[in-house]
């Protein structure tokens, strides 16, 4: 078994009196596709937000081990620092830069990997110009991988819905992550687009050497692509296992379908 790249230990998150996450521990290993499922309001997105630095968790530790590097705790880091370390995410409700072109959206994703500052921008010296040329080229290559290159100069808001979801993935990939966190990538997609997304997720994992952690409600997608599944309900981790195990797990079925009431 390969080594772990993300370790969340006993993560708890309180919002005032509401405990959104209670003592949740998860591990992602190098090269895995892992799904996080659970009913609405179970705390899935909260967990993503804790990992990516949007909220610091109330208790517990989250640590990462970038491939070839030593482990480090990322609990209290700001989101942009977490991104620099190699975690990238997409959003459940699409958060593209609507009035910028598709290419510019991806170019923003390269931000943390570029160096030019104010002086470089004004003087536009050789290295800055080179960097700009390279970022345009690299961003276009990323769009090609996700098959969005035909929209390159289009405004993000004018894209069809499915393409907007894909652009979120492209933008996240541009940050050169080792772990990609996808928050409901298939939401609002039609079955054909979802099928296409299956292939894409597996392809990204295989060609980009990126591990994938996804939240998804579309069970067919989850069962097809993921190698392991975590299930949360009411902020608690209730099950973990392969898709086959999860399908048979009575606790999971109860969480999703409810319990029979005996009069």
């Amino acid at each position, binding site marked *: 078994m390969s080594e772990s790249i993300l370790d969340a230990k006993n993560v708890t998150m309180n919002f005032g009196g509401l405990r959104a996450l209670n003592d949740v521990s998860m591990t992602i290993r190098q090269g895995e596709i892992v799904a996080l499922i659970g009913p609405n309001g179970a705390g899935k997105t909260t967990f993503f937000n804790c990992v990516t630095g949007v909220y610091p968790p109330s208790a517990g530790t989250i640590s990462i081990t970038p491939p070839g590097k030593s482990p480090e705790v990322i609990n209290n880091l700001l989101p*942009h620092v977490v991104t620099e370390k190699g975690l990238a995410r997409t959003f459940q409700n699409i958060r593209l830069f609507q009035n910028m072109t598709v290419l510019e959206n991806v170019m923003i994703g390269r931000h943390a990997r570029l160096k030019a500052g104010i002086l470089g921008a004004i003087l536009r010296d050789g290295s800055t110009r080179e960097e700009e040329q390279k970022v345009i080229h690299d961003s276009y290559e990323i769009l090609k991988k996700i098959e969005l290159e035909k929209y390159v100069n289009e405004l993000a808001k004018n894209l069809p819905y499915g393409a907007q979801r894909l652009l979120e993935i492209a933008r996240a990939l541009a940050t050169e992550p080792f772990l990609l966190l996808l928050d409901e990538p298939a939401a609002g997609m039609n079955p054909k687009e979802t099928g296409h997304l299956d292939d894409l997720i597996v392809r990204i994992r295989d060609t980009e050497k990126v591990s994938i952690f996804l939240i998804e409600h579309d069970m067919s997608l989850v069962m097809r692509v993921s190698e392991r599944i975590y299930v949360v309900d009411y902020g608690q981790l209730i099950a973990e296992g392969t898709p086959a195990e999860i399908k048979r797990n009575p606790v999971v079925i109860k969480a999703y379908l409810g319990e029979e009431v005996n009069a």
Partner: protein
Amino acid sequence: MNKLIPELKKSFVTALWFAFLTFPILVIKVNTVRNSILWRWGNLAAVFVLTMALSYVWRRLLEKRARGERLFDLSGLVPAKLRGIELKSVFAQKKNSRAALAVLLALAVLFPFVAGMYQTNIVTTALMYVILGLGLNIVIGLGGLLQLGYAAFYAVGAYTYGILNTRFGLSFWIALPLGAVLATIFGIILGFPVLRLKGDYLAIVTLGFAEICRIVLENWNDFSSGPSGISQIDRPPFFGIKLSVPQSAIYLYLITLALVVVTVFIVRRLENSRLGRAWEAMREDAVASEAMGVNLTIAKLSAFALGAFWAGMVGVLFAAKTTFINPASFTLMESVLILCIIVLGGMGSTAGVIVGALVIILLPEYLRAFTQYRMLLYGSILVLMMVFRPGGIIRKVRKSYVFKADGQVEGAGHE
């Protein structure tokens, strides 16, 4: 044709309403000396007919716009030979656009030698507002940070030169960068407390900040001479030679023009850089931009600082031009005026802001011929522009790229 009757009916109702509203002021005239009332029914008829016609034309134009047609077809005025040539495609070529810019610049340089001192002075003011607009455009147009206290930085620059010049005899050329740098520092000072704020809240805090600055200047007599202001500030000398008033008007015009060119150059470069992209991403979605690795602290502070920089510089210019400054020049109205320039010109668009500044500042001057109707006309023109071109006079065009099959950039241009 079947639409004509309801359309006319609508105009009729509008006209009726207007006639009713204006009845007390335009029709009844009470003479308190003779205790008589004069009924000016002629006015009523005039108002009625005029509003009915205007309302009809107004609605027709709006309809036309909704259908996406051009409001006024000017193609008949273009000579047949030139028809079919799109202006946009002519200027898309670098050679042509450069030549056009050079001609424009040459004309601008020659302008003060041809025009009188009055003309030179008002255009200098307009050019100052071009720089102010471009500076605030960094903060609002690109960064999306609604900043309503821009006049404070303008005041910092003006008072830097005013105080240092009258008390310590500091020259204009030293004060110019100094004022800009001091304003930048003020920009950063304001930036820190508002890092966590956005939208309306940010607007209120920046507004408060500007008011604090103005009130301090108004009340701290030892420092700023209070409301009576600072007078007899030196005009910039020409290599040590003191210029006469008309000469120095021309000189200041040329300095301002040069600074406009520098500003445009730098702002354009900033816009098309890593930092400029970060600003725009922050405007579009702060949470997402942070998740993409943009350091929001740096993005916000740099936007505030670089915006304030230009205001400080223009402040020094302003003090040198008017030779007198007092807090009344830096009220909230001033900030709002600069905001108007951006909105009217086109948010985020450099060319738009330049045109916006010229329109907003020069229009009231050239409307002076209409004496008492000046502000009425000015207001109506602004309203009309916003109704028919809500995106601004010149909208921002995003850069587009052409790629070869191997992914190399073949060319970049505007859509």
